[in-house]
């Protein structure tokens, strides 16, 4: 009898998994087709034709130069943020933890704020003028890694995870206050530019940057999946995990480094994307009714991609075009969904 139940549950999980994969394919296609210019289905059929009428060449151009990099960026960002969120929630055994909990995305924001808003305080931050878009990425990168470095130093000093969490949050506050100051002294146009960056976008990565972006994110995703066994043991708490043979210091270091790295890269390229990293692990747990990282890690990767692509799609619907940026969509549509699921399940965890 109970074997029957086990195999049923396994089957249910498989059905959900396959459905999500099909949904993902659908989202990819819709993301290719829908936007300010609708690309008809025929354009995809004739995509690889050598000879094309002019309007189809334009469609092909839009797909290759604009929509393809956007989709890859959304897919990698969603997967990375979901995974980083799961890593933080497991490390701190806290359902409220997410990729931004250690202040890393605030660090990225500070970097960008210094570049975009800095002209008012001496004009030394001219990287923006020199390097354009790359300068923004580089500034965000530098800020994020500076904070990650501080957090890693703190992790070496502080043994207690709760203390480390508070340190991370405090670093975030301190960094945010500097950003606030920069906003205060910044000029109107600059502040607007910074606000726009802060709303996030998957459209910032061009085709020529895509390879580097992928090369940075992909290995960290692969390395993260190698930690599923010790992450499972950590669910029971530090003392039990240690007794089971987990090297606590090492796993903590690995989780902070990987999650911090992923968050830093994604934030540098897309801006601080809210919500996906916090909510995706909860969606995965609710959907698969499991806390086993062997199921949660693939689930989080898949759901992260889906949520990111879904939000990107909503943001590009003709009605919302240029009205709702990605961060507004993620929170506005995602929050009620998660609240609904949690209220329905009446149970939440890490």
């Amino acid at each position, binding site marked *: 009898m*109970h074997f029957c139940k086990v195999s049923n549950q396994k089957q249910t999980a498989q059905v959900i998994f396959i459905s999500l994969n099909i949904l993902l394919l659908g989202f990819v296609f819709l993301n290719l087709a829908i936007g300010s210019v609708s690309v008809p289905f025929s354009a995809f059929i004739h995509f690889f034709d050598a000879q094309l009428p002019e309007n189809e060449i334009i469609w092909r151009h839009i797909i290759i130069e604009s929509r393809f990099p956007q989709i890859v960026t959304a897919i990698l960002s969603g997967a990375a943020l979901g995974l980083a969120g799961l890593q933080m929630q497991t490390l701190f055994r806290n359902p409220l933890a997410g990729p931004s909990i250690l202040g890393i995305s605030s660090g990225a924001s500070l970097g960008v704020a210094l570049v975009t808003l800095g002209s008012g305080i001496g004009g030394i931050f001219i990287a923006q003028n020199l390097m354009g878009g790359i300068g923004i990425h580089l500034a965000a990168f530098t800020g994020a890694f500076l904070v990650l470095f501080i957090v890693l130093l703190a992790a070496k000093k502080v043994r207690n995870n709760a203390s480390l969490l508070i340190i991370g949050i405090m670093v975030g506050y301190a960094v945010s206050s500097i950003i606030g100051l920069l906003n205060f002294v910044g000029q109107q146009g600059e502040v607007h530019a910074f606000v726009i960056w802060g709303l996030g976008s998957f459209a910032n990565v061009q085709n020529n940057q895509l390879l580097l972006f992928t090369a940075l994110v992909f290995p960290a995703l692969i390395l993260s999946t190698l930690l599923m066994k010790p992450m*499972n*043991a950590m669910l*029971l708490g530090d003392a039990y995990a*240690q007794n*089971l*043979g987990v090297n606590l210091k090492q796993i903590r270091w690995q989780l902070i480094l990987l999650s911090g790295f992923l968050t830093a890269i994604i934030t540098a390229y897309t801006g601080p994307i809210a919500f996906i990293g916090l909510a995706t692990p909860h969606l995965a747990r609710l959907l698969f009714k*499991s806390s086993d990282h062997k199921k949660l890690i693939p689930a989080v990767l898949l759901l992260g991609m889906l949520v990111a692509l879904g939000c990107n799609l909503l943001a590009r619907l003709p009605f919302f075009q240029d009205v709702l940026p990605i961060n507004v969509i993620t929170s506005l549509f995602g929050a009620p969904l998660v609240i609904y699921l949690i209220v329905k399940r009446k149970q939440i*965890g890490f």
Partner: protein
Amino acid sequence: MDYTDNILDIRDLTIGYLNDDKVVTIQSDLNLQLKKGELCCLIGPNGVGKSTLLRSISTQLSKLKGEILLNGISINDYDNQTLAKTLSVVLTESVQVPNLKVNELVAMGRFPYTNFWGKLNNEDQEKIDESIHLVGLQTLAERNFIELSDGEKQKALIAKALAQDTALILLDEPTAFLDFPSKMAILAELRKIAHSRNVAIILSTHDLELALKMADKIWLFPNKNEFKTGIPEDLVLSGAISNAFSNELLSFDLKTAHFTQRIKTRDILNVEGNSIEVEWLKRALIRKGISANPNNNMMFKALYDGSNNKYILQNENDIIGIFDNINEILKKIENIN
């Protein structure tokens, strides 16, 4: 001394912790041994270092001085993996993981044995099933751990420790928060496991009477810097138990192994008879500070009329009152003075 048949051998051990570079010693010069197949209860008042000792043995806490030998090898010389296969713990800290089934929790015990991905093979699955059976949770194996009662949770965590297949199991207050029958059942289960699987078990507990009944060996920490070990009966007869726990409020009754309250009592009345009702009336009187067995004859007398189910209070000549229950007669007696 030959330590080879001792699974655990503690020599000149000092335990405590470092607090801001200040050393806080909790117990020192401990010398304790434990053999395979023994159930050992660690007892003593709060704050004497029972948990500290258990955490020192399991290397969660660094020892301050001395040696802890596990199978003749210092615990500090074990690598993580081998130690995890030799020593398992059941702790007081609560496990709060939603969506973790009982069999998944027990499967965690196989962590030191499974491969890089944590895949369970047939042997792992057998050990898990066997452990769940030993604690009697087979009907709850598919249930979520956090939905279990406190007693069932404790059993599931014990099953996790059993699945870890270690020669030594440490349990920190496994009977706290349980009702009396569950306490009894858990201890009986542990003793059975210790004897049948030749595993050494150390558990700390505040349930002195249960410990005296069930333990093969007692480690008694009466206070700082003194400890006693032995089988329960010898420790009772030597007065060690009584010395450790008796105070101005409690006294230990050697015959019943119960603690009784020390209360100054007043002599008011004699209670006559030896029915069960009379015995319970005496208990109620003692609680109210009234002696049930005064040495001299008193003016008042209480007795129980079994044929009418009434409690009767009378002085030398007259019946003062007839009462339906102990509560009513008690009120009247209290008002005599």
